[in-house]
């Protein structure tokens, strides 16, 4: 043996014993909500970078929140005039419909009409705002919490409910868990139950757009928790290398089932900042402010469609409800944390703004809400008539054998026969 005389392992006391650092949220059940660690800044304070800004140019943007609406409902700053009153009203309507749909389905779940549902309470502005900034032919690669896209892009709520009820009219013929929709014509990619997998897929889709010399844009979506998956990184690496037209969204609603964003690394740096390390510029946005969301999304769409490279966006929000109908958040976070979220409710804020500015009357607003409730109630009545899988009226068993391949191989045909379909 030969070599450098290595120092022996030293005595205890030489260095203090190490301890594992396990991040804890500010509040647990029974505690008062505490958001004092977050610097929200002021509406209007953060301006617009150049369309071709690079990662270093967004250093401060990766921290400070882009906000347009203040607490009173006034719009401020450079991003304020990116959204017309007409657009804002369209958005309000889509957000209200999204919430009405969610409410109806939460009720349906309680009534045993479906075993499972996921709402997006408090996050409606994010999906709705970005969907409005994209155009036909573009493609979202959503998670289960971007149903707002569907209400922007003209999908019939009854079709969604048929999917949830897994009945004969379900566009997916009963194959998928409720809410794991696929609506290609609405620019809505088939949702996976496996977190994160859609991130590199979105980047690949955008690469295809560039390879074909098209001008279509992809929107990748992921939650704060799921950014820990390897797939988030591989998507970012591909985006960093080939610079395809993709918007790399992270919806930071601060919770991943029972674990808070610190368990995903969110207390060590913002998720927006993580993109900078790939040389991808990043903006951080108040996700409960439709005007900010839509303005920034337009910027992102324009940048990527112009071939100026990918852009990352972190939407800061708060998961207003339980993770899903299988979850009970009162077991792990203060019950009133959502109500105390300083950035408020996205629908209430936009409504207040439109009324304040005189673009909308209280009556019109009430009408929109009323109409949405009616629409969803009626859609649900129709969907229910098509059957509920839990009443034994699910999509036929024969569909199970279809669509595994374009042409079923012999053994699958045999099995189908054996099964009697």
């Amino acid at each position, binding site marked *: 043996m030969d070599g450098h005389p290595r120092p022996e392992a030293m005595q205890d006391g030489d260095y203090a014993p190490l301890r594992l650092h396990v991040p804890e949220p500010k509040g647990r059940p029974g505690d008062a909500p505490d958001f004092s660690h977050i610097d929200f800044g002021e509406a209007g304070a953060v301006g617009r970078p150049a369309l071709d800004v690079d990662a270093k140019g967004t250093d401060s943007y990766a921290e400070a929140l882009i906000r347009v609406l203040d607490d009173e409902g006034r719009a401020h700053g450079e991003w304020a005039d990116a959204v017309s009153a007409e657009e804002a009203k369209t958005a309000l309507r889509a957000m209200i419909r999204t919430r009405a749909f969610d409410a109806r389905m939460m009720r349906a779940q309680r009534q045993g009409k479906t075993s499972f549902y996921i709402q997006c309470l408090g996050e409606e502005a994010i999906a709705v705002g970005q969907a409005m900034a994209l155009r036909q032919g573009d493609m979202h690669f959503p998670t289960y919490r971007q149903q707002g896209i569907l209400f922007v892009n003209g999908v019939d709520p009854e079709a969604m409910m048929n999917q949830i009820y897994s009945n004969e009219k379900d566009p997916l*013929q009963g194959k998928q868990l409720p809410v794991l929709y696929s609506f290609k014509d609405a620019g809505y990619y088939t949702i996976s139950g496996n977190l994160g997998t859609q991130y590199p897929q979105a980047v690949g889709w955008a690469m295809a757009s560039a390879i074909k010399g098209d001008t279509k844009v992809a929107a990748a979506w992921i939650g704060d928790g799921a950014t820990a998956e390897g797939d988030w990184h591989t998507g970012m690496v591909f985006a960093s290398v080939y610079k395809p037209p993709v918007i790399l969204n992270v919806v930071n609603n601060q919770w991943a089932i029972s674990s808070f964003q610190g368990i995903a690394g969110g207390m060590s740096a913002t998720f927006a900042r993580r993109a900078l390390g790939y040389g991808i510029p990043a903006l951080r946005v108040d996700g409960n402010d439709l005007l900010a969301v839509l303005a920034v999304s337009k910027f992102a769409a324009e940048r990527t469609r112009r071939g100026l490279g990918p852009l990352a966006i972190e939407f800061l929000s708060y998961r207003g409800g339980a993770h899903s109908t299988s979850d009970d958040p009162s077991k792990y976070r203060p019950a009133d944390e959502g109500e105390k979220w300083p950035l408020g409710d996205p629908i209430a804020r936009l409504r207040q703004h439109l009324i304040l500015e005189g673009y909308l009357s209280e009556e019109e607003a009430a009408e929109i809400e009323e109409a949405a409730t009616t629409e969803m109630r009626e859609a649900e009545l129709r969907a229910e008539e098509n059957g509920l899988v839990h009443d034994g009226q699910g999509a036929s068993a024969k*569909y199970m054998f279809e669509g595994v391949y374009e042409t079923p191989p012999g053994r699958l045909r045999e099995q189908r026969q054996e099964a009697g379909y």
Partner: protein
Amino acid sequence: MSQTKSNTRAANMIEAIRDGHDVAMERDENVVVFGEDVGYFGGVFRCTHGLQEKYGTSRVFDAPITESGIVGAAIGMAAYGLKPCVEIQFADYIFPAYDQITQEAARIRYRSNGEFTCPLVIRTPTGGGIFGGQTHSQSPEAIFTHVSGLKTVIPSTPYDAKGMLIAAIEDPDPVIFLEPKRLYNGPFDGQHDKPLVPWSKHEDGKIPEGHYTVPLGKAETRRAGSEVTILAYGTMVYVAETAAEQAGVDAEIIDLRSLIPLDLEAIEESVKKTGRCVVVHEATLTGGFGGELAALIQERCFYHLEAPVKRVAGWDTPYPHAQEWAYLPGPDRVGRALKEVMTG
């Protein structure tokens, strides 16, 4: 059951697993437990509930949502000398960790010629029957049983769950510990339209207090019989029991419990006696563990077989949602297979 049941208490499978953790952690301070939602909250199925409070955040903690990271970190801890027992929230989410499990955990001892070892338990709820669709229902055992260096086990009672979990944690090699989630609350037999008997009302719903182990590699004969051998594991054990009863066949029902190592002696002995065999599993038929079982049986019991070994399994399709009861093997399908081999 291989042990006496003195000092037993009623427990469902979740409580049994929680207790298994507790006993193992109490005895060995090198046992650490982590995974998505397993810390403060105690796991989406509550299998680690209360452990963080008892053992502190250094030994029980929430993990980021990265299954490869969870297993990768656990391998490093095991190399250090800890005994990590990690939870993958659903077996359907174990695939991102497939490289770390099969190319690393399974190979550390071999490739380092024993310098480093990997005493690691990966617990994960498996199987269907909960209307979970493709991503909450799959049974991936066959992609682990093909990998040398891994053990793959699957208990079907609270007693076995606790005893096998302790044995797995004490094992010097990596163990894939599959928990048939449809059995957490009671012995589901595939009759989904009948009410579930809770474990508290079932004879197997009792666990001894404190430490005991159920050795990995031993099958359990659930019912002695003479006409046909049924090999099953997980939820299919109860499906097989009901099927045999309904079909009126005197079946010997073997709960394999441990797929690797496999209790070949018990299998051979039974099949040589009955001359007939039906293998039942939830996973997709083609390439499933049933193929290995059928191959082994015809290799070893060829001259005793009166009929071909028959496999009843999930169809060769992804796991569907609405069609769950047409997909998951139930007493009817198993019964038909029993009749077929009896006349075959």
